[in-house]
């Protein structure tokens, strides 16, 4: 158990280290002197921002210092939670701006990932090798996974918000309301949440259903399945074993797909002007707010690493082999 975790944590720490290094390196070594560009652009948005930026640049970026010292200072600032100042929402610190966006991301990502994974797997297993369903689930599932998240978002928004006027098209809650713990507010939040959630859910659902359908077909061709069949075991039992075996690759598939799902959530937020990190990124790009962009990058990495770690823990809970292997190892 200990060895497994130390190994995993080590990989994640190393990944974080490399990600921070990339975050530090890219603005410095990209052609065209982006740091100076950043300053010039900041000045054009807010005159007084330029001075603050310059102050930050000299402490955190420390452009006149030797390279290794610059790198060291970057880490130091990072551990103090100092990611610079946002140009877009001057003079709010970047960390602060991102913090207020994160709840919206979690609100979209966690339910859509968990629910689509469970529902997709169940449906895929149900459809596998049943002639009629299989012929519809296969093309429909592949078309869904091939759909760009934002396009499905655009279509859903167009049909349900513009034509049918059932749901609102933008924002996280009605502009007329102030955040409060009241029914009207919660209702407004749910109404605004539904369409972005639905577009994320539908695309992911297709992927999991297809994945499970393919896994089950492989499993049903495996020797143990044929053996059980020869023994005269009921079909339901064989399928249950196949399902349990297929769940594990689906779980590691989830870890692999996290990045794509996060990217999908980002673009969906843009469609619905949903104030999560994706929407911040669009704003940051349009206003050349590079500090904010770099902060978003770090937060996405941290989020994905944490999610990976959670999946590792789930793996131990679900897979008896990991547990046994770990007991034997320690």
């Amino acid at each position, binding site marked *: 158990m200990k060895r497994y975790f130390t190994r995993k944590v080590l990989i994640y720490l190393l990944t974080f280290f490399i990600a921070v290094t990339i975050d530090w390196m890219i603005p410095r070594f990209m052609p065209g002197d982006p740091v100076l560009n950043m300053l010039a652009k900041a000045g054009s948005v807010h005159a007084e921002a330029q001075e603050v930026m310059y102050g930050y640049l000299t402490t955190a970026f420390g452009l006149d210092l030797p390279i290794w010292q610059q790198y060291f200072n970057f880490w130091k600032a990072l551990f103090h939670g100092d990611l610079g100042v946002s140009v877009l929402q001057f003079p709010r610190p970047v960390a602060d701006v991102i913090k207020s966006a994160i709840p919206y991301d979690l609100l979209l990502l966690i339910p859509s990932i968990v629910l689509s994974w469970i529902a997709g797997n169940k449906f895929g297993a149900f459809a596998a090798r049943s002639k009629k369903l299989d012929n519809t689930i296969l093309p429909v599932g592949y078309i869904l996974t*091939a*759909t760009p998240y*934002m*396009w499905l978002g655009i279509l859903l928004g167009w049909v349900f918000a513009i034509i049918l006027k059932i749901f609102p098209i933008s924002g996280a809650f009605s502009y007329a309301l102030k955040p409060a713990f009241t029914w009207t507010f919660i209702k407004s939040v749910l109404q605004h949440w539904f369409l972005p959630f639905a577009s994320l859910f539908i695309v992911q659902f297709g992927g999991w259903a297809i994945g499970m359908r393919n896994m089950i077909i492989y499993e049903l061709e495996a020797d143990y399945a044929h053996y059980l069949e020869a023994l005269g075991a009921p079909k339901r039992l064989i399928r249950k074993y196949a399902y349990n075996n297929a769940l594990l690759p689906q779980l590691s598939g989830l870890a692999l797909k996290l990045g*794509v799902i996060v990217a999908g959530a*980002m673009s969906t937020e843009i469609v619905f002007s949903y104030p999560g990190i994706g929407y911040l990124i*669009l704003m940051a*790009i349009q206003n050349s707010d590079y500090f904010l962009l770099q902060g978003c990058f770090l937060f996405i990495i941290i989020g*994905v690493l944490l999610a990976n770690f959670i999946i590792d823990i789930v793996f131990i809970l679900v897979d008896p082999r990991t547990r046994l292997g770990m007991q034997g190892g320690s």
Partner: protein
Amino acid sequence: MGAEKKTNEILYFALRNGKLKIGLVIVFIFVAIAIFGPLFSKYPLNEFVAGGPNPPSADYFMGTTAYGQDVFAQFVYGLRSTFIVGIVGGGIATMLGMLIGFLGGYKGGWLDEFLNGITNIILVIPTFALLLIMVAYLKLRGVVLESIFIGLTCWPWAARAIRAQTFSLVSREFVDLAKLSGMGTLKIIFGEIAPNMMSYLFMTFILQFGGAILNAATLDFIGLGPTQGASLGLMMNWATIGSALLLGYWWWFVPPGLAITAIVGALYIMNVGLDEVFNPKLREM
């Protein structure tokens, strides 16, 4: 003689496979539109030819944008960008994946540990975040450059899969025989190992091709697309910023997404077909 017979058998199953045929036909239709479409475009790309928005008509096949640009011109040139991204981005990612997967899987030892470590680390970092931070700092962005960046960040899962496949082949007799006969590493990899997993490599390329297209669409949509020219993701970005949804200009935002979905979906379905052709166990009974 034996090889010829095997090719014939694969061809026989390929021609009978409905999924493969449907996928191929759809992809070819879009390739044809990408190649010949611009010849039929009446208006130059991105020029403000009409005063404002127009629904599709005989004059403007696919209507015009809110600013009066011809949607058909953007669509056909955007399709070209899509295929360039697929070929260049998917190609680079597949080749890097092959290089790293083959070397690690064949050589083993510290080299494998090292390459596998890098692969695992980049696998965890979301490609999209990496692309975001790299592309954001480029002032001038072109489709080819975007594709190269996509290729450079998307290889890890291919490397991992190819490494695993190589492992299973390395201990076979024909590889031992090649080693005994004094063949060099590269010659063994490309002469003995690669041909035995050709179908697998080809399918990896198709998946990378589709993945690169989707990645580019996301980047373009978020505002980091090519600074000149057209792409399908950019069209959706412009449409969203131009409030096409609120104003109901469906001809502006439906075609680009539909084309991406159709192309990538067709590629995926083609892949299932190929899997059935190469893997007799999966053929329909």
